[in-house]
């Protein structure tokens, strides 16, 4: 993986410090910003590739930054860090164009994994046929219990098509297998946001919302992939 230029934006000095230390071996350059003003001034000067973005700053809201970035710097991969661990804010961030989200408190490992899968995927994204192949590969990997490999494929799909409902759905399944139901719900809901008609995500969200989780996981099929990507 190419080492990206990373900007870490958080008003807490200690977070900036620890995050930058955790990522220092994966980055070509790490920049730090403690306020929204600083973010914009750095973005003006530096070719930032990945932005770790907190959602709360003394001088404004991280969501506004996300919205503007979508227009001004669409090439930047944004990973949102939030202390409000609810599903709503995560779904919101992803809708506004974030590639991934991390809920505080997080560990260095989860930071690195997120960066690897999201940024690594970006390099691999190519064509629509490729997308179909990757979705197929991701399903195979999940069945083979190779979850990181599956996630990498899916991130690549999302890098090409940020509104791929099957990719979000499969990411949700991966989170569910990892016993992280909250994140799983985020991804299922993102899948539904991407394509309201996408049945498997609807079924999975309904299943996970009830207890005991009855029914089986819906992986979706190649046909549904074609329908939603055409």
């Amino acid at each position: 993986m190419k080492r990206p230029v990373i900007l870490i934006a958080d008003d807490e000095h200690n977070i900036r410090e620890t995050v930058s230390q955790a990522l220092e071996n994966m980055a070509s350059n790490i920049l730090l910003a403690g306020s929204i003003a600083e973010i914009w001034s750095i973005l003006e000067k530096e070719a930032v590739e990945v932005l770790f973005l907190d959602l709360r700053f003394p001088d404004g809201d991280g969501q506004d930054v996300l919205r503007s970035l979508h227009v001004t710097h669409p090439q930047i991969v944004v990973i949102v860090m939030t202390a409000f661990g609810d599903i709503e804010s995560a779904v919101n961030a992803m809708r506004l164009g974030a590639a991934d989200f991390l809920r505080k408190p997080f560990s260095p490992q989860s930071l690195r994994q997120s960066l690897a899968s999201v940024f690594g995927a970006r390099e691999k994204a190519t064509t629509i046929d490729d997308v179909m192949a990757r979705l197929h590969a991701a399903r195979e990997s999940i069945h083979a219990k190779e979850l990181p490999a599956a996630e990498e494929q899916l991130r690549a799909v999302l890098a090409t098509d940020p509104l791929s409902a099957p990719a979000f759905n499969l990411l949700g399944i991966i989170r569910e297998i990892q016993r992280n139901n909250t994140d799983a719900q985020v991804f299922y809901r993102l899948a539904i946001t991407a394509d309201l008609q996408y049945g498997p995500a609807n079924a999975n969200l309904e299943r996970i919302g009830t207890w005991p989780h009855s029914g089986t996981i819906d992986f979706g099929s190649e046909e549904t992939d074609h329908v939603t990507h055409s």
Partner: protein
Amino acid sequence: MTLRTRILFGYGIAMTLFTVVLVMAILALVPLGDATDSILKENYRSISAADQMLASLQEEIIVFLAQGEDVAAQMRTLDAAFLSALSHATANITIYGESPLVSKIRTRYDGWRAFILDRREGARVFPAGRIIGADARDIIDRVQDLRNGIIQLRKLNTDHMHAASAEAKRLADRAVLITVIPGFSGLTLILLFSLVLSRRLVHPIRAMSEAAREISAGKLEIRLPENPNDELGELAREFNRMSVELQRFRDLNIEEVIAARKQSDAVLSSIDDGIVLIDTDMNATQVNPAAIRLLGDIAIQPHPLPTLQRILPVAELNDAVRSALVDGIVMEQPDEQRIFQVPRSDPKRYCQYSVELIRNPEDVPIGAVIVLRDVTRLKEVEHLKSEFVMAASHELRTPLTSIGMSIELLNESLSEFLTDRTRGLIGTAREELVRLRTLVSDLLDLSKIESGRITMVFEEVSLNPLVERILAIFRSQCEAKNVSLHWVENEIPPLRADASKIALVLTNLVSNALRYVPDNGNIWIDAHVFGQSVHIRVRDDGPGIPREYQSRIFERFMQAPGSGGGSGLGLAISKEIVKAHGGIIWVESDPDAGSCFTFTLPTS
């Protein structure tokens, strides 16, 4: 005079009167009979005798003048008939003046007979049809005299008969008079008496029934006139005494009721909680000042009584009161479900209500008491508290992240240089960090549940698969500690619950038990149906909970000694969840004999 004597007296007079009338009638009728009898006796026979004599005399004259062959024999027969009639008349001398007349007739007849006998002899001397003048004159005179005498006798008797008849008629008239006048006056008297008596009887009785009606209508001051000195007067007196006693009793009762009412009014107005009394028609009969303060400007007028719906348009409260009055039992509801926002309140105010039934001695509800408690402040404080807890736990997350990251990074970069002891220190720090994270997220969960930010999704839940899931979650932990986790299966109807929240309760209880039971210990989960609810138990054969902790074990941060970590919030969260389901949770524990946590859930 008593009524009885009066009746007897009245009818006695009438009876006497009638007796008198009867006697007088008899007395009047007897002379009437006598009179008729005397007419028959005194006159009729004399008249018929006179007629007989006249007839005989006529025959004698004819025989005498005819001068037949057997004159003597015929004369003898006629003579006997005349004498017989004359003796009849003689025997029937009854009237004054009759006797000389009869003697006169006898004398004259004697003279006539002598004359005839004489002339009969002489007739043989004189040829037939030759009666000389002097003789003829003599015969005519004699016959005339005799006839006159008889006719006089007849007339005397006829006259007398007419007089007697007139007398009888007079007597009859008198008898009628004597009978009719007292009879009618007696009748009138009895009629009058009956009229007076009935009026005297009926009038007081009617008055009494009227009075009784009034008394039963509540007019106890009614009095009856007591004047007549008889049984009715006595009855009236007793009646009056009864109404006096009734009145006294009522006045006494009213005083007591008023006193009791004043007391209860005083109590009601001095209570800080709002109190509304409701009758069976859902009308507010009484509202204390505190309730008026709480509910704002509600005017309570006595007519018509305002309905509860009007003064308190809160659907849950109205439903609760209505169903309590109908079913005769107050549905138990957890505190939070009995809080409502006061209608028309600005700024918003909140009240918590509780409903109690008022029952009559037969245990039938005759009304309800609604107690209203102002929980606005409490709600504000609670809101502030959960806001604070939420903000605090958010704020805690940032330093937690920094610390966690630092420790992980330290561990990564330094682990090869560290001794086992210092590596142990880092391990401790990591462990405690995990605990802190759990604590923060539990705190957040608890405050969310308490502030109602977590909405419960109630649905039909079958217990069996839910418990199976819990068993699966804990399988590896139990194996690690060599603890047996038993599920005592039982027929349980579907529950009405939020499945994921109930799973959390079970998870909390099992992980608690798991923390306390020794190696090779046991944990049992079972469930039983009790009426409309299901009791779910989590038992263990661990060391039990000391008595002094048992009552406070569900408070937050309350942990029994010997706990192997945990946030100290699990039971508090469980309690909140169970409460939100309308159930309760409790613990029974004998030190050294294990603990048993039970919670109840409604069936669907």
